[in-house]
């Protein structure tokens, strides 16, 4: 993990290009820069690189044929790009969580095989031929659909959305606990969904005028249930059978799940088998005992559906330390359940000074958004932060600002600003700062 300075820092580069320089003008930073300038370039005779001069096996022998992998996997050299869990978090693995390796992926689409999992009764292996979707309650006509029925509906849609667990970052409410962005922010994924608007199905059954709430229920052994207001159901909820162009993965609800854009992941019921219309919420376990947010005065918020604007720097981060001085790419993700990401600011001095990052790729509503800051690093200690702003004007708060309103025991909805301490040797740590 030790920092290497394989390439001498060219003196023509500023300490930190692209405006971060303003943030880094400190006595220490200036001294470090001066030192780098004075360092004489080491004059070792250049040796030829055996990676070039030797003939490699893959350059000589035949590789596998096209029949070797009817359904491909990542290269074996990418074996560390995997979901991980934290054993002590839960009593068993069936009602538990694992984490997306967001420090290892780029862009905005999460590969299906590493999308984090959250189950309450394990992964149900549902036979699609036996899967049914029922709509009942306050409707003109209670209905049953097969998967084939659903795929015949007109008005099919394809949409990318983030799904963030309400508990993402929950372990960090009281302080810095887990040393990796995979663990502090990895209860999230972002995929393209294929399906039909929930509105289409509700129209088919005919919602009665007093139908104000929608209960969604899973077919798994937890029979997960949540109450959704009818306004949201009629707005942008989807009944999805596809993700990233193929069928849902079993662990993501195959063959059918509900997509509730911008709202906490718990509501995105998997293995969806029933939709009920009622005139009141149902106060199910997952919206009373769980997914309610305890405040300092002993009362609790309920129905905290929306995931607020949030961001995190994924590189550098504890699992991705800085390895080289000179040019480096800082990158991260931003998202908001209230709209599109309008801007992301980055600080390297613990929030004293900020510069606006570059967003590359689309910044779609309710979807992960990728940002970058290209910078030069001279071995100076950094306190890296990012701060998201969304199209409603909401600005991601500090953890301290959140605690002022909510106390320490909310568990859910921690969207506070994350700080990474990058040390002189490049090692990076999850910290809280003054």
């Amino acid at each position, binding site marked *: 993990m030790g920092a290497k300075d394989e390439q001498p820092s060219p003196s023509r580069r500023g300490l930190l290009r692209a405006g971060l320089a303003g943030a880094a003008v400190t006595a220490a930073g200036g001294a470090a820069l001066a030192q780098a300038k004075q360092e004489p370039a080491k004059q070792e005779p250049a040796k030829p690189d055996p990676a070039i001069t030797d003939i490699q096996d893959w350059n000589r022998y035949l590789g596998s044929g096209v029949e070797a992998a009817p359904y491909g996997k990542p290269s074996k050299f990418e074996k560390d790009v995997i*979901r*991980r869990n*934290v*054993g*002590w978090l839960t*009593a068993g693995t*069936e009602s538990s969580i694992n984490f997306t390796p967001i420090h290892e992926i780029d862009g905005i689409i999460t590969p299906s095989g590493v999308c984090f999992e959250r189950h*309450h*009764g394990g992964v149900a292996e549902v036979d699609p031929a036996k899967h049914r979707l*029922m709509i009942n309650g306050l409707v003109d006509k*209670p*209905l049953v*659909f097969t998967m084939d*029925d659903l795929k015949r*509906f007109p*008005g099919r849609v394809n949409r990318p959305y983030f799904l963030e667990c309400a508990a993402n970052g929950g372990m960090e409410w009281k*302080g*810095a*606990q*887990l*040393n*990796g962005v995979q663990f502090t922010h990895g209860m999230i994924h972002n995929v393209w969904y294929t399906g039909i608007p929930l*509105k289409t199905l509700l*129209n*088919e059954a005919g919602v009665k005028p007093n139908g104000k709430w929608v209960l969604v*229920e899973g077919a798994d052994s*937890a029979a997960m249930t949540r109450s959704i207001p009818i306004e949201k159901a009629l707005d942008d909820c989807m009944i999805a059978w596809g993700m990233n162009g193929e069928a849902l993965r079993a662990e993501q609800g195959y063959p059918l799940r509900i997509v509730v854009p911008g709202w906490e992941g718990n509501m995105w019921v998997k293995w969806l088998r029933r939709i009920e219309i*009622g005139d*009141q919420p*149902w106060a*199910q*376990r997952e919206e*009373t*005992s769980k997914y309610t947010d*305890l405040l*300092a005065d*002993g009362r*609790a*918020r*309920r129905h905290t559906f*929306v995931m*607020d604007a949030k961001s995190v720097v994924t590189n550098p981060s*504890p699992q991705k330390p800085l390895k080289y001085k000179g040019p480096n790419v800082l990158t991260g993700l931003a998202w908001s359940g209230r709209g599109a990401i309008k801007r992301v*600011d980055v600080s390297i*001095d*613990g*929030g004293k*000074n900020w510069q606006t990052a570059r967003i590359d790729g689309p910044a779609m509503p309710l979807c992960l958004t990728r940002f970058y800051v290209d910078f030069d690093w001279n071995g100076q200690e950094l*306190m890296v932060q990012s701060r998201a702003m969304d199209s409603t*004007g*909401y*600005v*991601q708060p500090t953890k301290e600002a959140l605690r002022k*309103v909510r106390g*320490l025991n909310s568990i859910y909805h921690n969207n506070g600003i994350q700080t990474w301490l990058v040390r002189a040797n490049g090692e990076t740590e*999850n*910290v*809280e*700062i*003054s």
Partner: protein
Amino acid sequence: MSRFRNVVLAFGLAAALASPALPQAKKMQPPAEPAKTGLGRPALPEEIKAWDIDVRPDGLGAPVGKGDVKKGEELFLAQCAACHGEFGEAVGRWPVLVGGKGSLKADNPEKTIGSYWPDASTAFDYIRRAMPFGNARSLSDDDVYALTAFLLNMNEVVKDDFVLSNENIGKVKMPNAGAFYDDDRTTAEKHFWAEPCMKNCKTGEVKVTGRARVIDVTPDGKSGPKVE
């Protein structure tokens, strides 16, 4: 079908009016609500009964049946205590079901059925749909009434001779019922909607006040799932 005819008319009209009338044509677009397709089939009463088992706080959906505290205790020891403990105090990291009264403002609040849950119906509904863990839907409705009665009794919500039934499940008063309120972030956290500081935002030195490494609970690569 009249809606469908409107769609056709709107398109026809737009074409007739040609390009200068485009803004007007836009206004006349049909409502987004699609016509019915006739897909699916009616759900039969037996099918709805088999799947629609949810119970609301007011008791709507509660199946006919009843169970008392004593029978609930027997069932709890046989079916539940291995994980939740004989007194609902929990084994290992399994959920605590009893106690925690008055702890909600404490550093480590204990949120149980008695200290936190706002409605008795939720306990009945959840046990019935998802418990015992690994053998869901194996209890009769009367068993679930009895288990719920026992848990309410252990939490000092009802007396020892209490009988829970579909008649009274909507009337049980839970200690923490009044302590929940709807999401108020757009008012209570309105100050997060404000243009942020960009330069010289903090005075003095920024110091590290907490470190994950000190707690050191992050799993290493070896404890993650194995892949081939």
